[in-house]
């Protein structure tokens, strides 16, 4: 009689329940029965009850009252009871429960049991839910098993050791010698476990990494054996000999060869061999190839090998199988920082993948496309990305938008201010309205630098329109010269204004000196203050404007000459700020300005 019959009856009963409510009822009845059974003394059906409880737990119903029963079952001498007890321990117990400490002793005894299957149960449970204290207690046992037992136990002990190292890092030292000796085993399961253990040790401490670098020749030998050897039916998966072990070995070689010339040299031949000889028509072959490519790109490999690796990735990208395309993009993502140009070559294919129906492929393509945006391809990439944004699935929208903005910030020159000023200049019928509006905006808030800059420029340029006050589109406001100068001075003195903004304000103040009559002295004093400003740019401007005041004062009010005056101002402005000059061109003196600019060697 199979021990699971009562379990099956219960399962049948649960399945025959037609509604959720009925199912709950059945389960509650069963749980009550199980609880009663647990309280009874030793009976023959203990394992059945616990098995039923575990099934109920899988469906989502509470099962914590079975924890002590697990402890009792593990301590039993019967294999069937131990088995269910350990399974229950893995499902119901964890480090935080006190009951987990109670099983430490049972595990210890079972680790030295004569029957290997009992030993394996103990190892499995320890690897699954062993707490740090349990690991510390039992580590010497595991080390013993790593050295002297059959291969079935050795492979399980190796993985158990990995778990112990993860929980208690210092114990890594304890397992290092045993791990080293396991590499000479023939059994693939043991080798696999050994490689995983060594990988974990190397990832945890750099001393281990140094020590295990010496094993690179051995690892290369093992790998060669797998790749070159004839057909081995035991480990063969679709024509490749133990691909799982191959993948693990390649990963370990990658960790050992990183940043190390000698180790990398030792692997070059092997990697070239694997890359060229592996059959890529089946998934297993691709798994090995993919791992090889990642290894080649991560270690210090020869350039020829690197080119081969990137080409393999390129081939993957064109593969019909979506899985292959997905992982190709994942690996390209890893190397886009270091081998940027190589990845750029495949930009077209990657951008095409943005249009794929598969959401996972789209996500990978988006990540990669954003990483490939550069100053040279930004226009075409943005077109594609914006197209993608308009039709992409909702969960990717924020990432796409974020990426687009970041790229815009990085690669696009901020030309709002010059463009806006150009726009204003060209719309002469709105000059009056614009300057009034901007003046009002300036009065209320001077924190937005671009706005303040445009406002200052307009006041400087069209200050006479502002002071005249007659504008139909806005409500009438009497603005006197002092008000205007106050506003500009506020901008000049505010700590919120950037240097560029102060430059605009200073020039505007200067330009106003031709448009106003009463406060020229005030302007002169403002400008001269900045003659000793710490900022070099402002100081230079102020000094030059001061010079203008002194030398060209007689030209100030002549209408015809005002254009020349403005022109000189432009020239001076040009020489100190080659960025803004293409904006501040008076149309009448364009020819003259061009002439002078050529003299200075400046271009527009």
């Amino acid at each position, binding site marked *: *009689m199979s021990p*699971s019959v009562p379990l099956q009856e219960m399962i049948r009963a649960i*399945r025959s329940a037609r509604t959720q409510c009925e199912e709950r009822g059945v389960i509650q009845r069963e749980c009550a029965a199980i609880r009663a059974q647990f309280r009874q003394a030793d009976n023959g059906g203990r394992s059945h009850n616990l098995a039923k409880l575990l099934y109920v737990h899988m469906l*989502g119903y509470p099962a914590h009252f079975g924890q002590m029963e697990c402890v009792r079952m593990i301590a039993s001498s019967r294999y069937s009871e131990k088995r269910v007890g350990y*399974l229950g321990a893995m499902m119901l117990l964890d480090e935080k429960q006190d009951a987990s400490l109670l099983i430490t002793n049972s595990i210890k005894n079972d680790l030295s049991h004569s029957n290997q299957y009992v030993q394996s149960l103990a190892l499995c449970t320890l*690897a699954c839910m062993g707490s740090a204290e349990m690991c510390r207690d039992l580590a010497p046992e595991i080390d013993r098993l790593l050295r002297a037992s059959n291969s079935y136990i050795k492979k399980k002990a190796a993985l158990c050791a990995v778990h112990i190292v993860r929980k208690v890092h210092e114990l890594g030292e304890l397992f290092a010698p045993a791990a080293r000796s396991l590499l000479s085993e023939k059994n693939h399961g043991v080798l696999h476990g050994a490689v995983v253990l060594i990988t974990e040790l190397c990832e945890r401490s750099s001393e281990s990494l140094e020590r295990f670098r010496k094993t690179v020749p051995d690892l290369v030998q093992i790998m060669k054996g797998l790749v070159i050897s004839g057909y081995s039916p035991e480990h063969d998966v679709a024509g490749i000999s133990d691909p799982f072990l191959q993948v693990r070995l390649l990963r370990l070689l990658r960790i050992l060869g990183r940043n190390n010339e000698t180790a990398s040299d030792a692997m070059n031949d092997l990697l070239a061999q694997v890359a060229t000889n592996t059959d890529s028509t089946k998934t*297993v072959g691709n798994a090995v190839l993919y791992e090889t490519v990642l290894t080649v790109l991560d270690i210090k490999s020869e350039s020829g090998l690197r080119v081969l690796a990137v080409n393999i990735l390129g081939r993957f990208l064109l593969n019909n199988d979506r899985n292959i*395309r*997905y992982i190709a993009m994942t690996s390209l993502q890893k190397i886009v920082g270091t081998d940027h140009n190589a990845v750029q070559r495949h930009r077209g294919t990657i951008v095409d993948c943005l249009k794929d129906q*598969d959401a996972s492929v789209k996500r990978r393509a988006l990540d990669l496309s954003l990483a490939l945006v550069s100053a040279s391809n930004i226009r075409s990439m943005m077109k594609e990305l914006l197209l993608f944004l308009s039709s992409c699935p909702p969960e990717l929208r924020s990432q796409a938008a974020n990426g687009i903005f970041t790229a815009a910030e990085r690669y696009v020159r901020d030309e709002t201010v010059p463009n806006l000023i150009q726009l204003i200049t060209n719309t002469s019928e709105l000059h009056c309205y614009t300057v009034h509006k901007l003046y009002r905006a300036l009065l209320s808030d001077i924190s937005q630098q671009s706005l303040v800059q445009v406002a200052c420029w307009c006041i400087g340029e069209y200050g006479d329109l502002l002071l005249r006050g007659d504008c139909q589109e806005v409500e009438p406001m009497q603005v006197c010269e002092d008000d205007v100068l106050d506003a500009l001075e506020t901008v000049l003195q505010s700590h919120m204004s950037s240097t560029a903004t102060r430059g605009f304000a200073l020039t505007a103040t200067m330009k106003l000196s031709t448009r106003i009559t009463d406060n020229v002295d005030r302007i002169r004093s403002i400008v001269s203050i900045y003659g000793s400003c710490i900022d070099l740019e402002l100081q230079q401007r102020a000094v030059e404007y001061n010079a203008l005041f002194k030398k060209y004062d007689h030209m100030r009010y002549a209408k015809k000459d005002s254009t020349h005056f403005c022109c000189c101002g432009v020239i001076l402005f040009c020489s100190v700020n080659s960025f803004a000059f293409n904006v501040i061109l008076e149309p009448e003196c364009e020819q003259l300005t061009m002439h002078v600019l050529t003299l200075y060697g400046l271009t527009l």
Partner: protein
Amino acid sequence: MIRAILIFNNHGKPRLSKFYEHYTEDTEQQIIRETFHLVSKRDENVCNFLEGGMLIGGSDYKLIYRHYATLYFVFCVDSSESELGILDLIQVFVETLDKCFENVCELDLIFHVDKVHNILAEMVMGGMVLETNMNEIIMQVDAQNKMEKSETFIFQSTRQDR
């Protein structure tokens, strides 16, 4: 590292749930529901990799799944596992189940969930891949089952003797 192995059917009913990290019962059920929700939305001919849900661990984790008839086999893994390797592992797992149960179907998994756990325990241990050779796995599982059977037999015969 493999964080969890889930098998559920087309309606989201769990047929096997093995977690290699501890979660509370409520969280476990939530994870199953969320995984089912993510996986059932997928078309038939898209790739088998899904970026994981928020519950089970965030950006480092992926769901690798395969859909066979009425069942989804989902492995939730982190970046230290090879994606294609896990895909092959699922294949080996299903083939092993097929060998052990003679043309396995969903009902086999429902009524013999403990046996499925035992088979899985020979393949994945503590979240790490233990053995991938199908014949080796089946040999060990058979030996353990034989041991259990012989115990029951002894137990029954001793009872009769009394």
